[in-house]
Structure formats: structure tokens, C-alpha cells
């Protein structure tokens, strides 16, 4: 189900990453103000954009879950947010490295972009504990979806608020006052595509692994003659029931 097209996606990601790295280090010119240090932006900014978009996608998938009550949408929303959290960690670390090289400090508290991203990260860092705190799977998925929708709406609002703030200390890559020249913009675009592909590939891997695990568990229960509602280990991750496993199962049958 989820494994379909995984090989093509993986190959595309590897090729895109290789091309992006080649462009960053051999094609894009050195930036006049920051020099070689600016190369971090081709990594840091796409990571941040993909992470934030992933949070919003997680919210959209959660809306679909709330509409249909199909646990597969909850699983997709969970994986999107889970992967975005990993990308957000990478964003914060690479941003701190850039700040140290550029400003001489690992973190600057009066920079709105940095602090707002940290707030978004900390908000989503509560997602997994929230899920784990609720034992009933149905209630867990419903509450998690409500959280994902609310937090997902907060992300673009937060982004707009930062854009409207007057302190433009953080370099603007897209729009604003410092538009990139052609070669840099092209390199950035390829880096963004490569990062989006990496995100999509890792999400697909995660979904495939979880789906396969659920299938194995269902098969084990069937062989052991256990009921579908048999014991479920407490987990933050959503559990797919056997009814949700076949690709052609009716949506909404798990409510």
C-alpha cells in the first residue's frame, strides 16, 4: 500500500540531493556579505520551510481524520508531524551553527524568526506526550487530530506575524528586501525540492514500516486466534486495526 513507488521516490531523492549539493558548492557564487558561511542557507532555510509545511500538512490530514474517522488519516497526520519535528530539530541546530558563525552567538533571543520557530517547535514537542497520555486509542487519535488542526493553523499565523514585525534582522531568502540573484535562487529552489523529496521519502518509509508492522501484528493475532480488540501496548503512535489494513477498505468504518 504505502510501499508503492518508494523505490522511485528514493532514487529521485538521492539524485536531487546530489544535484543540490553540487549546485551549492560548485555553482552558486559566494555571497558578498557572508561569504562561504551563506552556504548553510541552502540547507537551513529549506529544512525550515519543509518542517513548517509538514506541520500544516499534518493539520490538513488531521481534518480529514476528523471528517472520516478513518485511522489511516490519523497515521498520516502523526507521521507528517513526527517527521516535521525531526526536520525542526535539524533547522534549530543548523540555525544555531549559522548564528555562531555569523553573529558570534549560538542563539539570539531578540531575533523574532528564531524565537517564533522555537515556539512552534516547543508547541509540537507536546504532541507526542499528549498522545501517550491518552490510553484509549479512539480518544487519543481524536484529541491528537484536534491538536494538529489547532497547531497547524497557528503555524501560518505565526509566520505572518513574524513577517509583519519591523526588526528585519534575519536574512530574507524569498521576497522582502534581499531577493537572490538568478544562480542563487535556482540553487535554493533545487535545494528546496531535494529537501521536500527527502521529507516525502522518509514519511513514506515510516508509513510503510508502520503499515507492515500492523499487518504482521494482525497476522499474528489471526494465527493465535485472538480477537482484534486484544491487548494493545500503550503507545503514542496510532494503531491500525485489521479493518483499516486492506487498501480497499471503506473509509469511516472504524468509527
Amino acid at each position, binding site marked *: 500500500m504505502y510501499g508503492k513507488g518508494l523505490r522511485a521516490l528514493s532514487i529521485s531523492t538521492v539524485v536531487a540531493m546530489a544535484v543540490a549539493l553540487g549546485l551549492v558548492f560548485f555553482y552558486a557564487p559566494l*555571497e*558578498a*556579505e*557572508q*561569504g*562561504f*558561511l551563506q*552556504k*548553510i542557507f541552502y*540547507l*537551513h532555510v529549506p*529544512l525550515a520551510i519543509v518542517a513548517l509545511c509538514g506541520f500544516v500538512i499534518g493539520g490538513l490530514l488531521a481534518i480529514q481524520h476528523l471528517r472520516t474517522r478513518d485511522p489511516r488519516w490519523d497515521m498520516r497526520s502523526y507521521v507528517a508531524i513526527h517527521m516535521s519535528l*525531526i526536520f525542526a*530539530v*535539524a533547522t534549530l*541546530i*543548523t540555525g544555531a*551553527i*549559522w548564528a*555562531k*558563525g*555569523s*553573529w558570534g*552567538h549560538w542563539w*539570539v533571543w*531578540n*531575533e523574532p524568526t528564531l524565537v517564533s520557530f522555537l515556539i512552534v517547535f516547543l508547541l509540537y514537542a507536546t504532541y507526542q506526550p499528549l498522545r501517550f497520555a491518552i490510553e484509549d486509542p479512539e480518544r487519543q487519535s481524536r484529541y491528537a487530530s484536534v491538536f494538529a488542526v489547532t497547531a497547524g493553523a497557528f503555524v501560518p499565523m505565526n509566520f505572518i506575524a513574524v513577517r509583519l514585525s519591523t*526588526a528585519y*534582522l534575519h*536574512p530574507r531568502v524569498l521576497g522582502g528586501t534581499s531577493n537572490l540573484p538568478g544562480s542563487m535562487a535556482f540553487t535554493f529552489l533545487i535545494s528546496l525540492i531535494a529537501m521536500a523529496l*527527502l521529507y516525502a521519502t*522518509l514519511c513514506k*518509509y515510516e508509513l510503510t*514500516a508502520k503499515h*507492515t*508492522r500492523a499487518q*504482521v501484528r494482525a*497476522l*499474528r493475532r489471526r*494465527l*493465535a*486466534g*485472538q480477537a482484534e480488540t486484544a491487548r494493545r501496548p500503550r503507545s503514542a503512535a496510532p494503531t491500525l486495526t485489521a479493518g483499516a489494513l486492506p487498501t480497499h477498505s471503506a473509509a469511516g468504518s472504524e468509527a
Partner: protein
Amino acid sequence: MALPLAELPALPLHEAGKYVAGAYVVLFVLVLIYVAIMALRLSRIERELGELLELSQAAAPAPEAESLPARESTLA
């Protein structure tokens, strides 16, 4: 502390290189950790599938055998 970027001098290559390398290594390490976790999961699924194969092979002649309830209880 929060100087405008235009006032900050560009770091020389030998000094900026370590920061750039550090940033790219961070992503590489994170992906590597993820791949390692996925490999562990895959090996666990493979082991479980092996166990299930043994279970199904053991359960195959079950209809002919008379001790079916006893066998089922050991599987649970």
C-alpha cells in the same frame, strides 16, 4: 549583539568552513540515525515474520491433529 547583517564582515573560508561542514554533517547524522532506526525496525519485522511462518507451518496440519486446543493455547 544583534548587528544588521551588512555590518558583519564575511568570515574567511578557513573559519567559515567548519561551520558549513558542521551544518551539513548535522543533517547527514540525523538521516543516518533515522536509517539505523529503520534498519532495526526492519530486522524486527523480519524476525516476527519468521516466527509467524513457523506458526503457520505448525498450524497447517492442525485440522488433522486431535490436540488442536492445546496447540492454540501455546500460541496465545
